[in-house]
């Protein structure tokens, strides 16, 4: 329906844009066109160059080469402040609001038209008290506020970078509603998401990036998900577990947890027990147990106490009440050091909380080895190299940018965080949304790794914001709602519809309407 548009009528035209960091090429040569009144998806595996291209389009970084035109006129984005002038506005996964100011003050700070922001919030059926401190509002609401603020600028092109990541389903619907209205008014959207289902629901066309270059632009209605995934992954899609060309987001789940594993695990020894864990406002008496070889999923909407639960198990915050036992022994960690010594390790939600951005992959992996004064002597470099090397090989980490992990792609960075614990050894690993914002290929590798680790006798506690992941990876699942475990069920029974009901606190079976 939009195919009749000639290139001359394009709203955004990016041609041959490239960006290099030192010896690492982030973007080789990317071209992209967005038509007026189009919702255009930007797709690509981690490290394909999506983030770099978005940063260039929002003026955060400047390209080494290439041109950008808006409505036929070349634009030179010299800083993020210059993007609105060119008709571009972006919303990112992490809202750019000052937590210590109220909503009203934040809007004034950026010179936003607060009447327009209010109109957009109303259009999304959201109520925000403008005198509330931003820091007191839940993350999903802040992201919606950020969206309203961007819309109020009336940009010609709205850039949405992973806006739906970890967003509850009802809010995703409202985002889509606004996008559709936006399109009807003749405006365009550049939509970046790892969730192919969403991309197919809302977008008209998609441009796929691979290895820093665009490898194709396709009209989504004409292509299957397999097509898109194959294009994203390139030749490697067929070499790596061939029977599964579909992302875990989408269709059949060929590697779903083997039914006999759960029963085998029930005889294995208890590795982690929580009894009545409570933390003011966040946790109201959480009890569960986790056996060796088991992957226990936690399903919850944003802000139901999962952060507090993981933090107190990992020793990052102290519980007000309750008891943690690791392999039968009481653990009352005063810091993560105590938890790690007991064998309980954390893969935090935010990679920025786990990595040393300026140091090498190897140093990042070896970090837990130097946690005690008694280990501050000379390093056994060969031993460290062997350990780190084995972990790098096991996780298939792309080592091209290993001299500084900040130059690595998001998926590879996540692998480095996991590799750290693979190298150091552990009994229980707490994974907080380890696949958030990661491409399908890396996601599958992480799923497989978690199952391998469980197979080798470890216990895994996994919180994920993507519900289909639970049936795919876990043995058992706990639904957490308002700081309590409201239900427990085996993973085989945890289809998305059931889980959705549970995470909304609807425990009893209700007729699906």
């Amino acid at each position, binding site marked *: 329906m939009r195919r009749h548009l000639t290139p001359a009528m394009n709203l955004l035209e990016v041609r041959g844009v490239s960006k*290099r*960091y*030192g*010896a690492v*090429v982030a973007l*080789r040569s990317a071209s992209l066109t967005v038509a007026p009144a189009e919702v255009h998806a930007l797709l690509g595996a981690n490290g394909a160059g999506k983030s770099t291209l978005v940063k260039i389009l929002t003026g955060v*970084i*400047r*390209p*080494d*080469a*290439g041109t950008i035109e808006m409505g036929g006129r070349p634009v*030179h984005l010299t800083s993020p402040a210059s993007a609105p002038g060119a008709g571009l506005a972006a919303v990112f996964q992490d809202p750019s609001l000052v937590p210590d100011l109220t909503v009203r003050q934040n809007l004034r700070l950026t010179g936003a038209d607060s009447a327009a922001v209010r109109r957009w919030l109303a259009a999304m059926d959201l109520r925000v008290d403008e005198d509330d401190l931003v820091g007191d509002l839940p993350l999903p609401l802040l992201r919606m506020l950020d969206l309203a603020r961007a819309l109020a600028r009336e940009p010609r092109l709205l850039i949405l970078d992973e806006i739906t990541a970890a967003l509850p389903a009802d809010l995703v619907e409202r985002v889509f509603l606004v996008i559709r209205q936006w399109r009807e008014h003749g405006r365009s959207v550049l939509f970046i998401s790892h969730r192919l289902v969403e991309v197919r629901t809302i977008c008209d066309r998609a441009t796929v990036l691979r*290895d820093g270059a665009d490898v194709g632009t396709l009209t989504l209605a004409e292509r299957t998900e397999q097509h898109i995934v194959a294009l994203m992954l390139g030749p490697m899609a067929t070499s790596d577990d061939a029977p599964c060309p579909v992302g875990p987001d989408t269709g059949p789940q060929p590697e779903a947890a083997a039914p006999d594993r759960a029963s085998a695990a029930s005889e294995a020894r208890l590795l982690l027990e929580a009894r009545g864990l409570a933390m003011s406002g966040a946790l109201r008496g959480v009890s569960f147990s986790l056996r060796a070889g088991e992957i226990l999923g936690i399903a919850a909407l944003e802000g139901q106490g999962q952060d507090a639960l993981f933090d107190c198990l*990992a020793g*990052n915050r102290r519980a007000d009440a309750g008891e943690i036992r690791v392999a039968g022994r009481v653990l009352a960690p005063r*810091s*993560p*050091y105590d*938890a*790690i*010594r007991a064998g309980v390790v*954390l893969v*935090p939600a935010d990679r*920025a*909380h*786990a*990595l*040393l*951005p*300026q*140091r090498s992959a190897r*140093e990042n992996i*070896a*970090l*837990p*080895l*130097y*946690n*005690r*004064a008694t*280990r*501050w*002597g*000379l*390093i056994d*470099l060969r031993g460290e190299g062997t350990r780190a090397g084995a972990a790098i090989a096991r996780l298939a980490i792309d080592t*091209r940018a290993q001299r500084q992990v900040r130059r690595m792609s998001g998926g590879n960075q996540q692998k480095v965080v996991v590799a*750290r614990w693979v190298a150091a050894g552990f009994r229980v690993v707490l994974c907080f949304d380890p696949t958030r914002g990661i491409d399908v290929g890396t996601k599958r590798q992480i799923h497989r790794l978690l199952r391998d680790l469980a197979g080798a006798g470890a216990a895994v506690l996994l919180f994920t914001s993507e519900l289909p992941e639970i049936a795919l990876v876990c043995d058992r699942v706990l639904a957490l709602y308002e700081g309590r475990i409201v239900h427990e069920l085996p993973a085989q029974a945890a289809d998305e519809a059931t889980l959705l009901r549970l995470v909304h606190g609807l425990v009893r079976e209700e007729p699906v309407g």
Partner: protein
Amino acid sequence: MTPSPAATDRPDTGALRPRPAVRWSAARRSLADRPALTLAGILVLLLAATDAVSPGFVTPHQLSTTLLYAAPLGALAAGQTLAMLTGGIDLSVSATATAAAYLIAGLGAQGTPRALAVALALGLVVGMTNGIGIGIFRVQPLIMTLGMAGVLGGALTLASLTFTNGVPVVPDAVHELGSGTVLGYLPLNTLVWAPLAVVLLVGLARSGLGRAIYAVGDNPLACRLAGVRVWQVLLVTYVLGGVLSAIAGILLVGYTNAADLNLATPYLLQSVAAVVIGGTSILGGSGGYAGTILGALILTVLDSLLTILNVSQAGKQMLYGAIVLGLAWIYARTALVE
């Protein structure tokens, strides 16, 4: 950076091969990637310039004097390097050095070993106090060490009143250590500095503590979550800084052969300048002592050059301040571009 014609006109030489970059950014990158090489080049240039202004500067005798001047600064800047690698700063280095120098002169009459032991113990206590404040009570390093410098300065002023009752004497051995040479040209204080430098260089690169120091400077939260006890690392860092400052004070008083209240004061700015010139990030997490050594040598030669050119102490101060600000600006820009 704006797209450079030089970069775009050349044929693409291959998918992943880096393209020839703009010259300016290449220079900056080489400064970031191989600071030691760049700094050594600057040092040679400065020596050549000084030799041109004052022919006969590059002689064994003059080079020996340069090393002699550089050693106290090198030791002082060592503590500063450690603090800055963890993302902090130590503004008490010069006050600690002056206090150590005072103790040497004041207690010299009671025996050299005793004076040395007390001076080093002072460095240890000052460093430990800083470390406890910063590591355990989470006081900002800038505030903690500034306060410590104030306390030490005041205490010294009081102490100087009592010292005038006796006769402050720098022990001969300390004087010899701070100004003598062996084998004709090799300064004795270099023989103190060199092993310290080797221990620091090897320690930072190859020890668990060295790794932890870089890691804490890069991301303290990540360290905490990985089980590193950040407070211990900070405590040890500032203790080392205090002891190194005391050593610097001993070398300094040995050279001047007399302690005064402002003995090491000019070295505070220089210690920061040496670290920053050496390429250690002001934000912590990257850099190292090799750069600082070269930074200290560069500053020392520059100081000679300025002296030959008849630049006053005030003029030098201004220049060193400007160097720190200029480099901070360049590093901030580099970080922004990345």
